[in-house]
């Protein structure tokens, strides 16, 4: 069979110009040395996480506590969101509600236009990535400067982040050097990390000083106080928010926690899970605008209530975006974030994104061996690998599979449901493998054989042996 036909039969085409995860991963793996480097870099982060969590004896109880608080909150989201809104408004914060990405982007554009803002900076916010805010504003003549170092690097390169905590983890320092040479005029070939970060620092200082509006994400919004917390390691959220006269914070509805006392649980879980740090360098608490400043919070649904309504998948909303599941995932480490063609990649992305668009993301739940490591590192105990399995069932039931796969599976199910047909097919199959091995030993239609030998086909099955020797 022509390999192209094989692909057409068995791989779900992805809408638009993008490649499916497996096709992108195959390209990623062509440079094996770089794949090894990517794998080892992220494994290093996983190991740092292991060391950090094993230093506190109550780690597993802390995970349970975090999971329970999130479960409780998700079940009472209506109450806590209303409480948060009331308290935040009392503190002088303007609250906006956005049903989807478009409304979110329109609200920000509205603020920018109303206030006649020219200069916008933004610290890391995966929600704004999910809403494609930068593109939306750029199309309307407004350039947003990403101030997280990793995000600024990928922004210069016109790439999306490949990781939610480490946005430029797919790039080597040589790549950064080339990018900075092109965009910041640094010396060609100077790969010294300190030299390069200093260049970024000077560049970003200027942007902070000139900025009129700063966008940040929200890690935790506290219902009882109406305040919110933003965690960064670079202090760039603070630089932006403190310098600009308008601070806009975007949050998904699931970012809410009931009380301040719960914050301690999540701050301890987040940093250890994300990078193996005991705490993020900056855990910045925002409560009210300073004199002369405006503070806005946009509370965004964008499919979250739909996910909340799916009993099998609602717990995915407990996610605190630590990316521990990325770092531990053997598939992510060997395929890179861009293979997932979504704002949030990795195992958690593979259970969140089908909710947003089943057709476009039908490949993602299959980008896993279901090894279960993701669920074990998850600080809020999301059963990620179980949900990957369940999404597979939903996607097939909804028709997001291929004709070839369907026929193959139906054939397999038929054979395996009929013992005598199974036995005769096995016998014939093994005979063909022994007598005409070239039929299976074909790299273009048998993906197994591309880089692996076929198992040997014995003359006797175990059952044959058993009947001869035991019965």
């Amino acid at each position, binding site marked *: 069979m022509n390999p192209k036909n094989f692909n057409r039969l068995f791989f779900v085409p992805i809408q638009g110009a993008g490649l499916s995860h497996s096709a992108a991963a195959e390209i990623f793996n062509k440079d094996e040395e770089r794949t090894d480097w990517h794998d080892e870099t992220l494994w290093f982060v996983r190991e740092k996480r292991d060391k950090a969590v094993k230093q506190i004896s109550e780690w597993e109880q802390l995970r349970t506590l975090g999971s329970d608080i999130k479960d409780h909150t998700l079940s009472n989201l209506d109450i806590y969101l209303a409480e948060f809104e009331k308290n935040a408004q009392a503190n002088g914060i303007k609250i906006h509600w956005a049903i989807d990405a478009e409304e979110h982007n329109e609200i920000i554009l509205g603020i920018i236009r109303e206030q006649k803002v020219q200069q916008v900076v933004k610290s890391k916010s995966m929600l704004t990535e999910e809403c494609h805010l930068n593109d939306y504003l750029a199309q309307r003549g407004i350039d947003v400067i990403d101030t997280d170092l990793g995000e600024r690097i990928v922004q210069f390169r016109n790439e999306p982040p490949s990781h939610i905590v480490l946005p430029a983890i797919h790039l080597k320092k040589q790549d950064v050097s080339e990018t900075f040479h092109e965009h910041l005029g640094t010396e060609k070939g100077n790969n010294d990390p300190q030299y390069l970060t200093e260049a970024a620092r000077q560049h970003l200082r200027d942007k902070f000083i000139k900025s009129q509006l700063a966008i940040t994400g929200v890690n935790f919004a506290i219902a009882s106080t109406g305040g919110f917390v933003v965690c960064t390691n670079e202090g760039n959220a603070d630089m932006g928010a403190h310098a600009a006269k308008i601070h806009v914070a975007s949050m998904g509805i699931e970012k809410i926690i009931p009380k301040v006392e719960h914050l301690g649980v999540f701050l301890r879980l987040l940093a250890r899970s994300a990078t193996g740090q005991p705490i993020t360098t900056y855990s910045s608490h925002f409560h009210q605008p300073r004199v002369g400043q405006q503070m806005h919070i946009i509370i965004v649904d964008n499919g979250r209530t739909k996910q909340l309504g799916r009993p099998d998948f609602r717990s995915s909303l407990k996610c605190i975006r630590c990316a521990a599941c990325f770092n531990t995932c053997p598939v992510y480490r060997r395929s890179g974030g861009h293979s997932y063609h979504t704002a949030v990649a990795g195992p958690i992305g593979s259970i969140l994104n089908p909710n947003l668009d089943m057709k476009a993301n039908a490949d993602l739940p299959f980008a896993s061996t279901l090894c279960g490591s993701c669920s074990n590192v998850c600080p809020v105990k999301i059963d990620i690998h179980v949900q990957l399995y369940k999404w597979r069932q939903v996607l097939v*039931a909804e028709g997001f599979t291929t004709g070839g796969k369907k026929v193959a599976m*139906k054939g397999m199910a038929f054979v395996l449901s009929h013992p005598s047909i199974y036995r005769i097919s096995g016998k014939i199959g093994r005979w063909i493998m022994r007598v005409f091995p070239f039929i299976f030993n074909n790299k273009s239609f048998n993906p197994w054989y591309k880089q692996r030998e076929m198992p040997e086909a014995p003359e006797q099955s175990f059952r044959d042996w058993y009947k001869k020797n035991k019965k």
Partner: protein
Amino acid sequence: MKVGLFIPCYVDQFYPKVAVATLELLEKLGCEVVFPLNQTCCGQPMANSGFASLSEGCDKNFIANFGEVDYVVSPSGSCVLHVKEHLHDQNETKASYIRRNIYELTEFIVDVLKVENMVANFPHKVGMHISCHGQRGLNLSSMSELSAPSFSKPAYLLNMVKGLQLSLPKRVDECCGFGGTFCVFEEAVSVKMGKDRITEHAINEVEYITGVDVSCLMHLEGILKRQGSSVKTIHIAEILNTH
């Protein structure tokens, strides 16, 4: 005690020696073993591909074969886990009995038979591959992600084998990349994961790679053979059945 031997379809077809070793080992340990002759497959290949709706026939056949034994034992953690989690029938009594009484081989030997001595003899350097479904699904050993005391049922048994030198790869419990149909639909990543496991075992200069799942070993064997490596794969039952 009547033990029903469940030999997964691909083991029956391609690795009968593993099934023979499992049968002989269980008999050696004093079990009355029956091999129901009309067994086929647990249904996992369909279910993991999203076609659990098509596994009804397999479920029915499984229950028809294994409804009358005290325990079901199998040399495959992955298939056992699938049955434990997903075997259903209109008559749930039999299905739930099987779900509760199906065991992976090493777990059966350690937890049910409570074996404390083995007579096996295998004077070789052996690397252990920890298969994910057995480990994270059936709890056959502690997991590197969790803060919990360390233990391993397969290693407990291997350490009783005379002459065997056991080693673990640097990343003790990373997946080998087999993953059922993942091995063909995500061929590039699957093979890369397998190659990386092999590299770590090779650093330990092992002669054999062993494990509780034939599927992982089949995948690793395919790569080893293509590489022309001298390292062989061997199922844990084959080691425990030596004398």
